């Protein structure tokens, strides 16, 4: 779809292959990336002093890191033509259980705990996320229950479980060390939490686009029956994909603890829709089989930039959701129209 020359298979020289860079930044995400640029430029033109500040960028990135990690997992899920509504609740569960675990091993209050306790907390967060992901995956792939129902179920169940854990209260006592280094520390001006999110995203992008795991993800979403018939273990693969999404939600919960210094039991109810919107905005089809992590990155940042920009330029609050809605729809419209034009030229 992106080559410029016509070739017959039999005479195809390897050199005519589209170069990696072109494929990565490929035309499928070009337009949505441009929308992001235009947004930044527009806000920048209105309030250059406030927008083009290092700190504004730092905050924007740091505040978006958690959603980005969730959305990377969601990209895989949606490419398999599935959906995961549970990510927000799983995040909350992981965050609460990790905070409680850290407190428990520090005798009730982990505020002054060291790296050992922190590592243990990370482990607990990731494992509890993984367990929910595995549960989702098994119910979807083995019991063949539609992903929407399974993850809507675990959405409620994980939230209920998180509330049960600490009887409905937020958990404090997050190690100061964790917050100072990982939560609000920076490296060369880049918040550490953003570095983690960027590494996760890059690994996710590579996993999806260069490995067998990624290839199977596309295949399962494109035609599950075909994948099964060629001998791909569709069940196993789906389980792994939901496991991945759950694990990343667990990691995101830990990141949230580090950033906020508290495990919050409320909130995150709309994380699922936000992540799904980011993925779809990034050009991934809800019907599976195609999509990219790079697109998701743009899809995460467009609403984030928009919301921040609207606050900065002082748009009246009730107008903000309306403005976001208009830009969302317009961005996808532009993207779709350009793609169609390219294919029909």
């Amino acid at each position, binding site marked *: *779809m992106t080559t410029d020359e016509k070739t017959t*298979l*039999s005479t195809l020289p390897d050199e005519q292959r589209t170069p990696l860079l072109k494929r990565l930044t490929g035309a499928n995400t070009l337009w949505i990336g441009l929308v992001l640029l235009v947004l930044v430029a527009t806000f920048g033109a209105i309030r250059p002093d406030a927008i083009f500040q290092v700190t504004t960028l730092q905050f924007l990135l740091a505040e978006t890191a958690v959603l980005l990690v969730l959305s990377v997992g969601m990209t895989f899920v949606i490419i398999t033509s599935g959906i995961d509504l549970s990510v927000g609740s799983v995040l909350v569960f992981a965050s609460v259980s990790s905070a409680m675990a850290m407190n428990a091993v520090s005798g009730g209050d982990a505020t002054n705990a060291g790296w050992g306790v922190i590592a243990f907390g990370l482990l607990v967060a990731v494992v509890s996320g993984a367990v929910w992901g595995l549960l989702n995956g098994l119910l979807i792939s083995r019991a063949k229950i539609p992903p929407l129902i399974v993850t809507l179920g675990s959405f409620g169940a994980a939230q209920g479980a998180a509330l049960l854990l600490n009887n409905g209260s937020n958990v404090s006592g997050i190690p100061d060390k964790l917050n100072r280094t990982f939560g609000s520390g920076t490296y060369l001006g880049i918040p550490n939490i953003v570095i983690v999110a960027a590494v996760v995203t890059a690994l996710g992008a590579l996993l999806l686009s260069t490995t067998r795991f990624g290839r199977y993800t*596309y295949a399962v*979403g494109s*035609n599950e029956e075909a994948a099964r018939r*060629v001998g791909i273990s569709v069940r196993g693969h789906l389980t792994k994909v939901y496991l991945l999404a759950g694990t990343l939600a667990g990691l995101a919960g830990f990141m949230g603890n580090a950033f906020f210094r508290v495990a919050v039991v409320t909130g995150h109810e709309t994380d699922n829709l936000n992540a799904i919107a980011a993925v779809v905005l990034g050009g991934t089809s809800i019907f599976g*089989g195609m999509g990219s992590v790079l697109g998701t990155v743009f899809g995460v940042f467009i609403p984030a930039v928009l919301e921040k920009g609207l606050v900065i330029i002082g748009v009246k609050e009730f107008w903000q959701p309306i403005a976001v809605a208009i830009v969302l729809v317009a961005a996808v419209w532009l993207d779709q129209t350009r793609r169609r034009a390219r294919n029909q030229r």
Partner: protein
Amino acid sequence: MSQPLLEARDLTKNYGTVEALRGASFTAYPGEVVSLIGDNGAGKSTLVKCLSGVEQPTSGTLFFDGEPLVLDSPNSARDLGIETVFQDLAVAPDLDPAANMFLGREILKPGVLGLLGVLDKKAMRRQAAEHFTRFGATLQSIDVPIAALSGGQRQSVAVARSVAWASKLVFMDEPTAALGVVQRERVLEVIKRVRDEGIAVVLISHNMPEVLSVSDRVEVLRLGRRVARFKASDTSVEELVGAMTGALTQEDAA
């Protein structure tokens, strides 16, 4: 004759109240081309699905190399060296032809990258191109998803795929239905070559001259049951049509 490679006895398959197979039997010997023919809806595709692990028969028994066999997934068939061209092709429409060709059999990069599961896309593309050429399939661009290919091109990909991986038995459910004259010839040649390598080929086709020209034996299915078996050299189009339509039945065929 030698021992059958694959034998099915009295298979039945119900879909709700529809009885697609009503006690069908089937035999394939190593190194032969056996055609499976029958009217529309006779149950040929259903039988192939049952014999390649895609569907589980409601009842009946299978033997492979004389041993009883349960095919509980396409994977078990694959492990036995059985490959299939399905009538509906079963390709992943969003993936390109090379990716489809190597689906489930990906080539990994050598070394550490390979251990990490990184694909060697270049190698796959090159090898796929070679295979397609063998079948006379020309594509304008190899980068398009398979959904953008013409019906015949898509079929060539599916056929190339099955032949590349089969080591014991290939099922081909109407592999030439959408092919052009040239491509059809190529496929028939390949079928013969594969047979000569000792692999059994099961061909399903509605084209009687084609069936007679390429096969060693013919089995006829009618209303979900085997009603006749012929040596290709001893029969004629008229006889085959008679068997398919029920004008002619062999007592001992079932």
